[in-house]
Each structure stands twice: as C-alpha cells, then as structure tokens.
C-alpha cells in the first residue's frame, strides 16, 4: 500500500505550533457547525498561512484554488519564486487542502492568477521584505546593499558575506500578516514570471507516479459503487430522494466479499473487498423504483426554456430601444439556442473517504475543497472541523462535474463499514449525472437603419442553471430537492459594441435538468448570439464583418487584438450580401470572425483575457459535414506568468470549444438524460482537429488576466459565421452537425426533406396443428421404454476407442449445448431458445438417476438415431438426432464408451417451457414421420474420399445443418436448395453456407478452414455466439478432418454448379406442409436508410448512428496501418453479420460482446447492453448496415428486434 501522507506537507496547525520559522498569514473566519450557523454564533478569527519558510530553508506556499489540469500549480510557484528570488523547484505549492490551504472559494471563473494569486504574491513580498530587514540586522549591512538569490541573501559588495533564509528564520518564530504595501518586484526585474516554465506535474503524469485521487490507496481500503435512481440527471422535484421502493438485498448473496449494502432514501451503495465484485454487485443488485414524472420536451429547447419560470433582471438600458427598433429600416429578430453539453471528463469522478468517530478524512478531486467540507459535514451532520479534505488532481473537469458527489457517496459508504472506502463512478453515471452545461436561449430584437448602422439591440438571455447541489445531499433527503436559480446567465451579457439604443436582460431560472457551470459558462452562448448577430448586421449592411465590428467596438485594447488577428489570418475584406462560392467537388470553404472578452463573476463582474478567432471551415454540401480546418486565435492576457501555460490553455480552449460547436449536444428522452458513453456523446478526435495559429499580445506591463476559458468564448460564433460565408446558411443552434447543415442547405435551396415512410410487413403464421396431428395418427406415438441397465462396464471398450470417442464427442459439439453457464461439464441445463419455447439440455454424464447411467447402448443408439429417450419419450429435434442418425456404428460405439467413461454428475434440470402444440411430446412421432428421413445421408462413391469424409462429419456428428439450415414451422430442417441456407439457434442467426450466403466474399475452402480452425476469417469475421464454443470443440479434431469439412462445405457453397443428383440431400420426397416459414418471412423492406441510399450518397446517413460508430466502435473496428493492436480488428465491410438478411447476430454481438473468444489472441469485445438504449442501438445498426453493406437493403423493424433480443438474451 502506498502511504498517502508522504507527499503531503504539514497542516496549518502543525506549522503554527512550531517554535521556529516565518509564517505569512491572513485572518479568516473559521467554519461553523450547522448548529452554530443556525444560532448565528460568531467565533474568533483564525490564521490562514500563505507562505511558510522553515529553518531548513524549505519554502511552502499555499493557495485555496486547485489545479484542474491547467498548470496553475507551476504558475503560482513561479510567482512565489519570483518575489522570493528562488528557483521554481525550491517552492512547494500546496493547493486546496482544507487543513493547509486558505479558503479562497471554488476554483472557477479563470480567477486563480487574476485574483487568488494576489494575496500569495503579497505574502511572498512580505516575507522577502522581512527577510531583508533581518539579514540587514544580522549582517549589519543596509537592506539596499543586499541581494537575494536562490534562498540566500548576499552582500552586493562581497558575495562571501551571506546568510540563508533558513538561518534567518531559525532563531525564532515570526508570524506576519500579509502586508499589501510590501514592495513588489518591478516587472522589469522579472526573471521567472513571464518566462515559460516546464510544468512541475508532467513528469509524474508521464510515468505513472501518484498524482490522481484515483490512485490514492489507504491501508484497509474497500471498494464502493453506487446504484443511482432511474431519474438520471435530475435534481429537483418531489420524487427526488423519495422514489425507492425496495432493495432485494439477497440478490447479490452469490457475489463474494460483499461487506455492506447501504440504503438511505434514494441513495443505494454497495461495498466489497474487491473492486470487480463491487462492480458486479452494482450491476446485479435488484432495486425497484417508483415511476418518475416526465421532463418538459427538451427536443424543443427553445420552448422548454421559455416555459421555465423565471425572474427577470434588467442589466443595461440606454436610449429607447423599442422606438429605435420600431423605426428601423429593417427589423431583425433572431433567436439563438445553445444545447445542453457535458463537461465530459475522461476519468469518471472518484473519491476516497475514511469516516471514523472523531475524524473524517476525504481524498478528493474537487474544485472546491472548503465548500465540499461544508457539504460533507452537513451530510454527516457533524462539526465541519472534524472533516479534512485532501485535494488530489483529477481528470480535467472544466467546471462542476461529479467530483463532489462521489465524495458524498464515499463518506456514506465508509460510515457504513467503518473502514476507508474508495468509490469511482462508472462512465455511464458520470455521463448521466454530471451537472450539465445548461441549454441557453438568447433572443435578440434589433434592426438596421438605412445607413447600415444598427438601429437598436434588445437582448434577453435565459439560463436554466445553478450550482448543482451535491447529489448525495438530495438523494438522502438531507437537502430538499427544490429547484433554485443562481444568477449566472449574465456572463459577457453586455455586447462589446456600441448601440445608441440598447437593453440587456437576463431571465434567472432554476435548472430543468441538473446543471452547473461549464467552461465559458453563459458567456460562450451569449457571445455566440452577440457575435452571430453583429455578423448578420454586417451582412445586411453589405459591409465587411471585421470592419463593421471595429466601427462599433468600444474597447481599444479589443480593437487592437481584432486588427492583429485579422492581419495574421490575412483576412480579405468582404462586401457582405452573400454570393455563391466556388466548390471543389461538393466541398465549399468559408471563413468567419468573432471576438469576445470573457466577463466572469457576479455582474458586472471582471473581464478576463480578450480573445478573437478567425475560423476556416469546409462544408461538404452533399453530406452536410462541417470541418474546421484552421483557427487563427488572438489572445491578450496581460502579463503571462507562464507563456507556455497560456499557449496550452489557448490551444485547449480552441479544440474543446470546436468540439462543442461541431459535435456536442446532450440527448434526452421524455424523462431523463440518455447519453451514457462516447458513442452517444462523441467529442473531437485527432483527425478532426484544426490547425491552430496563436497570436499572443505581449503586454507584460498589464496585470495578468485569466486565460482558462477566454479562447473558447468566440468559437461557436466564428464557426457559424464561417459556415454562413461558405454556404449562405445561417445556423443559430449548435452543434453544427451534418444533419442540421443538410437541413439548412435544403431549406436554402427551397427543397424540403421528407423522410421516407417506413413500411411494416406482417408475419403470416398458419396454425398447422391439424397437419401434425394428422401425421401422428399415421404413426403411433407410443414407443416402448428400454430397460434400465447398471452402469455398463468400460472393460469392453479399449482406451483407443474411448479416446476416439472423445474426439467424436468434440466433433459433435455435445458440450456446447449440454453444459450450462458455470455448470458442471456435460451435466446439461443450458436453456435453448427455440421458436417454440425454451428447452433445457439434458445431462450426458453417466449418473444413473439424472443422466445416462442406466442407458444401454441400444437405448443410446435409439436416442441418437431416432430421437427417442430410453423411457420411450420423444426428444425434440433441437437435439440433432436427424443428423446423428448418419453416424456410423463404430463411431456410435466409441461415443457411448467415452460418455460412460466420464465422471457422473447428479443434476436437477429445469422443466422445458414450450408452447402448444409443441409441449405435447407424442406429437413428435408425427414430426418424425414427416421430416426425419429427409436428412439421411449416403456416401457418394463418385466423390473424393476427402469430400465424403467432410460430408460425413458435417451431416453426421457435426450436425452443421441443425443450425445452418432453415427450419419450417414444424421445426424441421429444410432441405434441397435450403440445405445450409441459414438458420437460427438460441436467438443467433447461423448464416447460410450455401449459394444463398450473403457474405460479401464467398466462403472458400481456405476461409472455412481458417475460420473453423482459429475462430476467425479475415474475410468474414470472428466466430461469435454459439459458434465460438463450436470452434473450441473442433479444436480437438485433426487438421485433416477440419480440411475435409471445409472442402465439403465449400462445395456446397458453390452447389449451383452441381447437378441435383450430386446434392446429397433431398433423397426422400415428403409433401411439405407449409410454404411460408419464418426464415422466409421478408426481413427486408425499404426504410429511411434505404431511401437515403437510393437518393443520396452513403455519407448522408443519420449522424447520430455515425457518431455512435465512431465514438464507440471505431477504436477496434477500423483498420490500423500498423500491426500494433492486441486482438483482431474485424472489419465491418466484410463482416458476414452486417451483410446478412437478419440483424440478429450484429445486435447480439453489440449487446453482449465477445467475452470468451475461441482464442485470447483474437481479442475481446465488451458488452454494450448497459451503455446503449434501444433507440441508440437502432441508430447504430441502421448506420452500420447502410455504411458497410451499401448493396443490401435496410433491415426493418430493428427497434422491435432489439427489444426482443434484450428480452430473450439466450445463453450464449
């Protein structure tokens, strides 16, 4: 176990208890317990340390803000090092910890360097001033004759005269208040600040050293997981915290190492010794919930936000805006709608807690350790002073994600088990429950005067968000789930342009779904509206959008930036009045501009860095796909503490906000958030990133401005303006997906998109009971029992015979059906889903009571050849006696010998669950009369030995046709041209192996050999479902047998070239009672995808399906140029399942994955059953079919098929 305290500095109390050292402090109000708060008790102030210098010379600096991955730890160390004339590596920065760092509020608003670093800088200056005075006294040299360097103070005259900081502070203990008048080092003297410094945290991150809260391991730590309620992503309404009906605690009794199940209100959590068991318990614990109420329809966000109750604040009113607009030459009312978006941290949130009776330790990746401490104390109903929050780095959050929630989870679970507990959320939980960046509505009323000037600007923004209370407080009922508004819709709400008549209002409103700040907060959407609108005005005025902006831009520093960015990007003046652009193929290019200054904190707030974008886009007018190819971004942050750090923030902001503008939007159904993984919520990938050119204003004399968010703010407007430039289409509702772009282009060209109607076929089923009953009369259903025998002596069989029986047993794949999941080998009990109901396989071990122990060879042979059990009962033809009848006598003996040589296992098997008339066993007699003889096989002397061997194996023990031939409504294999024409087993499709195969590449003998031998053929894909275990069993057969089977099957595949007599089957003609079977029911009809394919190129497929494939599947299912990936990478273009008439295998593989490949070298596929809903899977499968099997018609009825497969998962 790692000792988590190694890397920690001493606490504030430990420092202040020392007898030596220099401590620069500030007074603060101590935290109060809930009771003290209620009684309005005041406590004496306490001291918070900003700088500590110890007698060994060690310098520790403290800041209340934390590093969210932006590198401020390094920048803060640079500030301290500069003021104290140290090297950066001599400063240890401590960020956030409640017992160490000062309480400076949440790390938000890009305010760390701009605001919270100020007292730290003064503290360092205070320390330096004090040290110089002390040194002057000690050395008897005037302070101005001294110089500080790397922790030592020297005489300027004689460098041999010196004293170190450590020596100076070792004589006594000095506690100084921060002196805001202590002289700061002049900027011109800076040696460290303003110069790029390597980040101090990256070496550890690149080598796997302890960095993240996810890596914290406390001795005795257990693993917890939570089960969240079904009202995903909601945090207000009476049902929150009150929806749990029941937890079936015994439903996880079978999982080892479960320590506790904790239930409080709607909070449900499990704790286990091992993490994988906690995960299993989370998945398998049966929890019942009440239904919850619907949401407003969030697919119409504009309406939903308008309908959300609000309070209006007027923030600016000048002139007479209404009159001005009424008198405008051209009135322009515009509505801009920003989507809900995710923080989308790559690592789901994690927290570790150790709740003891007198102390609560929490290790957290929170943005706000001190606020979290208050929340946790409230949750546990204890004095806040008992809680210590130690802050570790976490996955980048860009705002409020689930980092605090998971600490609430961890303390509740730790309290339950009285041991430390680590909780990490799942990907699905983080996606569903993180407080979203809110959807936002921006309404602009305005217009343009005859001279092209803006007539007026009436701007209203509505932002349904708050600070997202810790979810654990709500689920447990500690805090009432009342939707509260927070006044945060006003960031950068005042446009930067001068309007004679202007009114700016914000509608403060409570969240609709759980929401909180996300990078750029409301400023990014507000700017999207301001900067789109100014572009629309310039266009209407027939003017260049940059020149138009500059005319009305009030802020000179902004104008300077705008000009420098336009110049760097080589901006070509435009005339306005859009004209059609030249296309290259279907691609058209465009360029757009936008500018903003991020204004954060309580209105009117503080301005952070200034930023301006020139974005270049390419629009594929055919598919609607938009790509951003280049961004020139200008940025003015005043003094840059670490210019490289600022550059990284600019690049990060450009790429992240490009992702948000092009791709990102949270989906909802009627009551919850839907997107649970990266397929449903895709983000920008490497091939999609634009080239980024940065223009950084060089203004070291100006104070530092926050750079964490600014470069995001102009993004969406610049891209929308570029799209307009390219296409003449104005998009006012990000993200700018291919679908929206296509719709825009169609609308502009006066066309309308009418989706093709789906046509649904109806299955025609005929009741055939009379036919089968009639046949049963012809042949008596009654068959005698064969007398039970003692377990036969094996002495009669040689070891060689038993060994051969073992191979034959494998060739017959007996184990595949006769072993249940996790059950004893060959002891039966596997449920086999048939169209007629569920049949459980029987016990093949020689147990006398429940297996074959009292079966004579005659009984065994009768069962194998005729499908009659020893006791005379008819067996169902799901047991392939129709094939086994073809096994020769010698092999039959060997099989019997092998079975009887195995250990006996006693089992209790479930009863079959068959529908009428199939539940009447005697009717199988009639069935046999009708169908059994059809599959009798005879050798063909004119064929080669290999062919005959293959035919014997395939049609005998191999019983390939049992799965791969279609069955009629009576469950009998069809023959003739339908031999191996594709069938179904356990809900899986067994694809056609004959000329009817839909595989894009015909099955060759070699491909069959590869597939049967290794479980994979590059031309067809891997063996999945029940075929996987079949290939594993076939592993026991020699190459020669596999070759023979492949040879024979390949000949069937090309049997159109064979004469009818050559076909070995259909040698008995029986009147076929039905002409329509399930296998023949049309599976194929025109649907949306087909219509698209017919009319448009394949790129015009639903973008959500494409996004899902790219986000969820393409990591493994695209080719890689290099052979650098573990496992095969099955290509969908050649995959038989994608080309099949039925979607079943594709759906099953996606839902259940490949957990047990034939060989580990083939690789694995996870199950997506918990990550995709049926609708998402439908989109994905529709896309895959259209994209990868473009010559095949679309599958119909997919949604229903998916639901059916989920309801009948089968046993493979």
């Amino acid at each position, binding site marked *: 176990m790692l000792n988590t305290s190694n890397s920690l500095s001493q606490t504030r109390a430990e420092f202040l208890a020392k007898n030596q050292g220099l401590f620069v402090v500030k007074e603060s109000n101590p935290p109060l317990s809930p009771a003290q708060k209620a009684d309005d008790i005041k406590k004496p102030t306490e001291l918070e340390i900003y700088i500590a210098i110890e007698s060994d010379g060690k310098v520790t600096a403290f800041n209340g803000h934390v590093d969210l*991955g932006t590198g401020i730890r390094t920048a803060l160390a640079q500030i301290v090092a500069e003021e104290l004339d140290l090297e950066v590596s001599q400063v240890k920065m401590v960020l956030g910890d409640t017992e160490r760092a000062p309480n400076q509020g949440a790390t938000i608003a890009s305010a760390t360097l701009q605001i919270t670093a100020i007292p730290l800088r003064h503290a360092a200056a205070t320390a330096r001033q004090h040290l110089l005075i002390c040194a002057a006294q000690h050395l008897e040299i005037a302070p101005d004759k001294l110089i500080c360097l790397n922790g030592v103070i020297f005489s300027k005259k004689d460098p041999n005269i010196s004293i170190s900081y450590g020596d100076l502070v070792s004589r006594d203990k000095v506690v100084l208040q921060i002196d805001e008048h202590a002289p700061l080092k002049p900027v011109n003297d800076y040696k460290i600040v303003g110069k790029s410094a390597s*980040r101090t*945290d*990256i*070496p*550890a*991150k*690149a*080598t*796997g*050293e*302890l*960095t*993240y809260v*996810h890596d914290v*391991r406390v001795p005795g730590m257990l*693993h917890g997981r939570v089960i969240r309620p079904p009202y995903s992503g909601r945090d207000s309404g009476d049902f929150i915290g009150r929806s749990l009906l029941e937890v079936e605690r015994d439903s996880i009794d079978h999982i080892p190492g479960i320590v506790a199940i904790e239930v409080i209100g709607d909070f449900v959590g499990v704790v286990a010794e*091992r*993490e*994988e068991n906690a995960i299993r318990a989370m998945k398998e614990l049966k929890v019942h919930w009440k239904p919850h109420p619907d949401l407003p329809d969030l697919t119409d966000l504009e309406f939903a936000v308008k309908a959300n109750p609000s309070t209006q604040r007027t923030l600016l009113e000048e002139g007479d805006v209404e009159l001005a607009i009424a008198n405008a030459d051209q009135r322009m009312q515009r509505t801009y709608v920003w989507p809900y978006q995710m923080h989308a*941290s*790559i*690592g*789901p949130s994690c927290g570790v807690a150790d709740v003891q009776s007198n102390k609560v330790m929490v290790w957290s990746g929170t943005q706000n350790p001190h606020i979290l401490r208050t929340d946790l104390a409230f949750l546990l109903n204890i004095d806040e002073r008992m809680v210590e929050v130690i802050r570790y*780095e976490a*996955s*980048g959050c860009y705002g409020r994600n689930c980092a605090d929630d998971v600490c609430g989870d961890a303390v509740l679970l730790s309290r339950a088990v009285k041991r430390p507990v680590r909780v*990490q959320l799942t*990907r699905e939980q983080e996606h569903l429950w993180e407080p979203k960046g809110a959807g936002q509505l921006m309404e602009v009323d305005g217009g343009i005067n005859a001279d092209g000037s803006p007539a007026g600007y009436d701007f209203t923004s509505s932002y349904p968000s708050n600070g997202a209370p810790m979810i654990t407080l709500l689920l447990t009922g500690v805090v009432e789930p009342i939707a509260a508004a927070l006044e945060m819709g006003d960031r950068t709400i005042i446009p930067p342009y001068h309007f004679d008549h202007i009114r700016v209002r914000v509608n403060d409103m409570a969240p609709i779904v759980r929401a909180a700040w996300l990078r750029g907060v409301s400023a990014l959407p507000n700017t999207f509206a301001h900067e789109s609108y100014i572009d629309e005005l310039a266009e209407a005025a027939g003017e260049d959008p940059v020149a138009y902006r500059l005319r009305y831009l009030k802020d000179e520093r902004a104008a300077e930036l705008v000009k420098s960015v336009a110049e760097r990007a080589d901006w070509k003046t435009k005339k306005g009045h859009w004209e059609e652009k030249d296309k290259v193929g279907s691609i058209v290019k465009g360029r757009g501009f936008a500018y903003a200054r991020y204004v954060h904190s309580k209105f009117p707030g503080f301005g952070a860095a200034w930023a301006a974008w020139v974005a270049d886009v390419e629009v594929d007018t055919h598919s609607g796909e938009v790509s951003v190819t280049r961004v020139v971004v200008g940025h003015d942050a005043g003094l840059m503490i670490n210019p*490289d750090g600022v550059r*990284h923030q600019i*690049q*990060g*902001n*450009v790429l*992240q906000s490009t992702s948000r503008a092009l791709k990102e939007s949270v989906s909802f159904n009627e009551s919850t958030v839907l997107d649970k*993984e*990266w397929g449903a919520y895709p*983000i*920008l*990938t*490497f*091939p999609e*990133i634009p080239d980024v050119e940065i223009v950084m204003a060089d203004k070291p004399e100006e104070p530092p401005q926050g750079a964490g968010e600014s470069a995001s703010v102009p993004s969406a407007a610049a891209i929308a303006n570029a799209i307009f430039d390219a296409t003449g289409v104005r998009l006012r509702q990000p993200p700018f997906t291919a679908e929206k772009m296509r719709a825009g282009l169609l609308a502009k060209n006066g066309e309308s998109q009418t989706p093709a109607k789906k046509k649904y076929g109806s299955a025609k089923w005929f009741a055939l009971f009379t036919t089968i009953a009639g046949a049963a009369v012809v042949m008596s259903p009654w068959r005698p029992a064969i007398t039970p025998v003692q377990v036969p002596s094996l002495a009669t069989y040689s070891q060689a015979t038993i060994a051969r029986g073992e191979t034959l047993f494998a060739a017959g794949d007996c184990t595949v059906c006769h072993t249940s999941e996790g059950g004893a080998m060959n002891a039966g009990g596997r449920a086999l889903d048939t169209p007629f109901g569920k049949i459980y396989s029987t016990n093949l071990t020689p147990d006398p009571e429940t297996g074959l122990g009292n079966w004579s060879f005659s009984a065994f042979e009768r069962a194998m050849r005729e499908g009659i059990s020893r006791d005379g009962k008819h067996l169902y033809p799901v047991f392939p006696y129709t094939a086994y009848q073809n096994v020769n006598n010698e092999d039959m003996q060997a099989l019997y010998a092998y079975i009887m040589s195995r250990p006996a296992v006693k089992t209790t098997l479930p009863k079959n669950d068959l529908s009428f008339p199939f539940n009447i066993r005697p009717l199988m007699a009639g069935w046999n009369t009708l169908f059994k003889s059809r599959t009798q096989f005879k050798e063909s002397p004119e064929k080669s030995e290999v062919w005959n061997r293959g035919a014997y194996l395939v049609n005998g023990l191999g019983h390939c046709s049992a799965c791969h031939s279609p069955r009629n409504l009576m469950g009998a294999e069809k023959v003739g041209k339908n031999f191996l024409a594709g069938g179904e087993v356990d809900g899986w499709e067994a694809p056609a192996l004959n000329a009817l195969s839909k595989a894009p590449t015909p099955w060759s003998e070699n491909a069959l050999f590869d597939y049967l031998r290794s479980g994979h053929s590059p031309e067809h894909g891997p063996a999945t479902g029940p075929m996987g275990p079949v290939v594993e069993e076939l592993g026991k057969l020699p190459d020669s047998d596999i070759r023979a089977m492949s040879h024979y099957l390949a000949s069937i595949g090309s049997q159109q070239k064979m004469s009818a007599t050559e076909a070995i089957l259909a040698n008995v003609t029986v009147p076929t009672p039905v002409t329509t079977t399930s296998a023949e029911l049309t599976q194929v009809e025109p649907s949306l995808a087909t219509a698209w394919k017919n009319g448009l190129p394949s790129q015009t497929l639903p973008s959500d399906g494409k996004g899902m494939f790219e986000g*969820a599947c*393409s*990591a*493994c299912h695209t080719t890689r*140029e*290099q052979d*650098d*990936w*573990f*496992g095969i990478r099955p290509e969908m273009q050649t995959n038989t399942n994608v080309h099949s008439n039925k979607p079943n295998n594709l759906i099953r593989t996606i839902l259940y*994955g490949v957990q047990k490949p034939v060989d*580990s070298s083939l*690789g*694995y596929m*996870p199950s997506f059953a918990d*990550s995709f809903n049926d609708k998402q899977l439908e989109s994905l499968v529709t896309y895959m079919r259209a994209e990868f099997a473009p010559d095949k018609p679309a599958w119909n009825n997919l949604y229903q098929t998916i639901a059916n497969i989920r309801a009948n998962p089968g046993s493979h």
Partner: protein
Amino acid sequence: MSFLLNGEMVQVEADTQTPLLYILRNDFQLNGPKFGCGLGECGACSVLIDDRVARCCAIPLIAVEGRKVQTLEGLGSIESPSVVQKAFIDEQASQCGYCTNGMIITTTAFLHKCSAKPSTQQIKEALRANLCRCGTHIEIIKAVEVAAEALFFDASNPLEEGK
C-alpha cells in the same frame, strides 16, 4: 495464474474473468492504466500486451496468461524515462494528464511497429481512438513527432528504458 508484468513474472489469485485493469491497479498498485469508460472507447486504460496496445478495461485477466504485459511504469521512470515519455515531458504534452497513459502506450506500440518515421497524418490516425478532453492534441502530436525523430534518427534508441 501467472504472467510477465513489467519484466517480472507475477502470480495472481483472482476470478480470471476480472478485467485486467482492476488486477493491475489493485493487486499490483499500478497507477498508469486508468479507468475511463470500461468499454474500450477512450484509451485511458491502455497497456501493452506482447508489445501491442490493449485496452485492459475490456480484457479479462485470463487473456494474459503466459503473456507479457507492460504498463506506463514499465516503460520508464521520472529519473529514467523512455524516449516516448521523455518526449511527452519535454513537449509538455499533458494538461490534466488522465489520457496521458493511453497516449504514451499507444504511441509506444505504434512507433514500435512503424518501419519509417510516420507522417503527421499517420500519427493522427494512430491516435484516432484515444480521447483527450483538455484539447492537448497539438502538443501530443508534437511529442510523438519528437519521439519518432529520436527513434528513427538513431535506430538503436530503445522504446523502453533499460533495454
């Protein structure tokens, strides 16, 4: 069950269907591979199995029986980083750094299999399915280019420290 982990033969007693990620993190206290999605989508959990990239959140323990597994820790250390690790540190190719493990591991396997210095386009394709939310892509591409430069300038330059 035993396998070769960062150069050492190790034994582990656990359900063999357990995702390898939890074994590496909990039984061997390794920090490199990170849980990101559990679905093999994001790449944060990447390790090398027999020198190839593997997303160990979606691969059971049984898969590595008798195989060679390397994590970020097995490539190098702060004192002695591998060529790829050094390039990531020098180029500051990390913001929050949660994806860094996957980026370094994927780059290591990719460069190992490249026969010549890859183009920027090839690098982007190789990292296509590694997600980064901070937008560090540009620095990461640069780091891969620097590592490739080092490796293909001097073919004897090892991808792993100490080899």
